[in-house]
């Protein structure tokens, strides 16, 4: 098991290296001149040249890449083109907001999808199953920004039940933190919960028909033991794959939701950076997102080895 983790980890390193090259190449791909962006159209040629020199734009591209990656390895993403503030500290400030949003959304989606998928799968064909399946189809179809608006109107505007905007740190007040997270996280997580429900439902149905479930019943095991031990471990393999795919989707969803609920997170930061062509910030956000995806895939791979011993073979 440890060997497998190490093997997968060593595979991830070249991948991250390639991703870093692609991220850096954004410099070459994004149209426009950063010096012009900073100094404005009316700047003199000398000013522009000075800025270019300061940014290192006159150096060969490889030199610039190694300078950048060297800093990035120490978690130094440089400074913003405009505010001169450190990108790393700006991200560090905003990370708790985005992380809270994504994690609460994930927890909400699991809290909905685990029981819903299990109940629908174990009672397939019944009225419960039909209702849950219809609900899940609707959940997939509802766009998060529309749901977010609707929830804001109902819970924050028409009634004073929950705050519609802003963020309170969990260290400051866990209760307020949770209240502020509830609407955005629910808007973000509902679509995921619907996808996961459908996935879990179908894998529960397939797994229930397996011979080893009949064996478990033939052994006289209690119904809940059959379901929670013999069924769930096998049925969760496809569900975990689906879950792994949901995490990047949730992260990209934070971009819209943070805007909608005025949360000052990484999503908002990225949007403004793209609009301003603030390259160091864009690079940092893209690289971070890529790392999250790689780590998620790694975690999914490793969980396969736990869930399905056959995959532990070479």
């Amino acid at each position, binding site marked *: 098991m440890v060997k497998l983790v190490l093997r997968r980890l060593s595979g991830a390193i070249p991948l991250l290296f390639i991703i870093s090259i692609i991220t850096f190449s954004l410099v070459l791909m994004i149209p426009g001149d950063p010096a012009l962006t900073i100094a404005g159209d009316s700047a003199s040629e000398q000013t522009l040249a000075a800025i270019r020199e300061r940014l290192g734009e006159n150096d060969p591209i490889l030199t610039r890449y190694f300078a950048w990656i060297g800093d990035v390895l120490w978690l130094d993403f440089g400074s913003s083109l405009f505010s001169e503030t450190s990108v790393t500290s700006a991200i560090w400030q905003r990370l708790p907001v985005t992380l809270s949003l994504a994690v609460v959304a994930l927890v909400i989606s699991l809290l909905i999808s685990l029981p819903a998928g299990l109940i629908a799968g174990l009672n397939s064909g019944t009225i419960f199953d039909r209702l849950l399946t219809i609900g899940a189809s609707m959940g997939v179809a509802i766009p998060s920004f529309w749901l977010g608006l609707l929830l804001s109107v109902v819970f924050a505007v028409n009634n004073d039940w929950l705050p519609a905007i802003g963020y309170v740190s969990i260290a400051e007040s866990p209760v307020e933190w949770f209240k502020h997270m509830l609407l955005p996280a629910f808007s973000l997580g509902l679509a995921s919960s619907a996808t996961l429900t459908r996935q879990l439902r179908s894998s529960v149905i397939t797994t229930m028909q397996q011979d080893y479930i009949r064996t478990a019943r*033939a*052994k*006289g095991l209690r119904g809940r*033991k059959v379901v929670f*031990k013999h069924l769930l*471990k096998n049925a969760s393999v496809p569900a975990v794959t689906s879950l792994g795919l949901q995490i990047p989707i949730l992260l990209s969803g934070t971009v819209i939701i943070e805007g909608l609920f005025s949360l000052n997170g990484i999503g908002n930061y990225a949007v403004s950076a793209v609009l301003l062509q603030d390259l160091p910030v864009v690079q940092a956000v893209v690289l971070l997102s890529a790392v999250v995806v790689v780590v998620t895939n790694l975690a999914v791979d490793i969980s396969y080895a736990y869930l399905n011993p*056959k995959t532990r073979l070479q």
Partner: protein
Amino acid sequence: MTMSEPRTGSPADTSAPPLLEVDGLMVDFNTDQGWANIVDNATFRLDRGTTLGLVGESGSGKSVTSLAVMGLLPKSVGRVRSGSIRLDGTELTGLSERRMEDIRGDTMAMIFQEPATSLNPAFTVGDQIAEMVRRHRGVNRRLAWDRAIEVLGEVGIPNARSRAKAYPHEFSGGMRQRVMIAMAISCEPRLLIADEPTTALDVTIQAQVLALLDRLVRDHDMAMLLITHDLGVIAQVSDEALVMYAGQIVERALVSELYQLPRHPYSEGLLVSMPQIAPRTSARLASIPGSPPMPWQQPSGCRFHPRCPYALERCRHDEAILVQLSETRSSRCLRVDELDLGRGGNE
């Protein structure tokens, strides 16, 4: 499987109450064509220390009969319409699911056809045996694990102590079936149901597994209900045989009697379609023409008449009933007194 000498031996003392007594069992399945009768009025008994073979083609109702005994009919698809199943004096039909769970694995256990898919790929074999021991014996993990190692050794798994920690995919087909058998006997059941236990195995392994089952039944004084389509298997380990066709028992006999003189044309068909080592009298293997009827379109009269070489006009109309011929024999053939069976379609 080649034909071997039928076992001689007679059922145990019939005056003692039987271990398993099935009486008038009717099982229906919900098919695309509505509810169809799958097992029609099955009646038989099984005594301690004996093996009863249940023979027939696929779709004859033999597996469904065994699943009904185990209470494992797929819910919403199959149901016991009527009849009685008594195990060691306890009436099983109508028992709550919780009571059935207490009995399954404890008083009776079952072995299935496909050892490859019948074991859970996600848990070690030791764990899968030990959890059953803990369930029924209420012992702690350590003792349950020791018991798992003990039964793995008993069924001939080498290095049982270390192999208990292996996963099912790390065993060969024959060894997996031994693991299934170890699991089934781990709580010392009185009734062992084996549904085609050797069908998925290599021919060389089949005989070993049958010999193992036979030994275990004797050593532990269990009763075994052995379900197979292969009369050769029955010959090796069974004392008595029930031949099923289209959901009905068509013949009941001691195995030795059945081989010497079948009393139903279907039994005869099964016997002559077995491959023989003995001199080849005809160039090709005999077989029963046609295939069994679908449950929702059973023929009128005797259900076997469309495939029977001896069928007369009355076989189409008159319902065949199971007639007791002697203490050990019954046959469901309208012409049982007229036919001289045993040679395959030559009156």
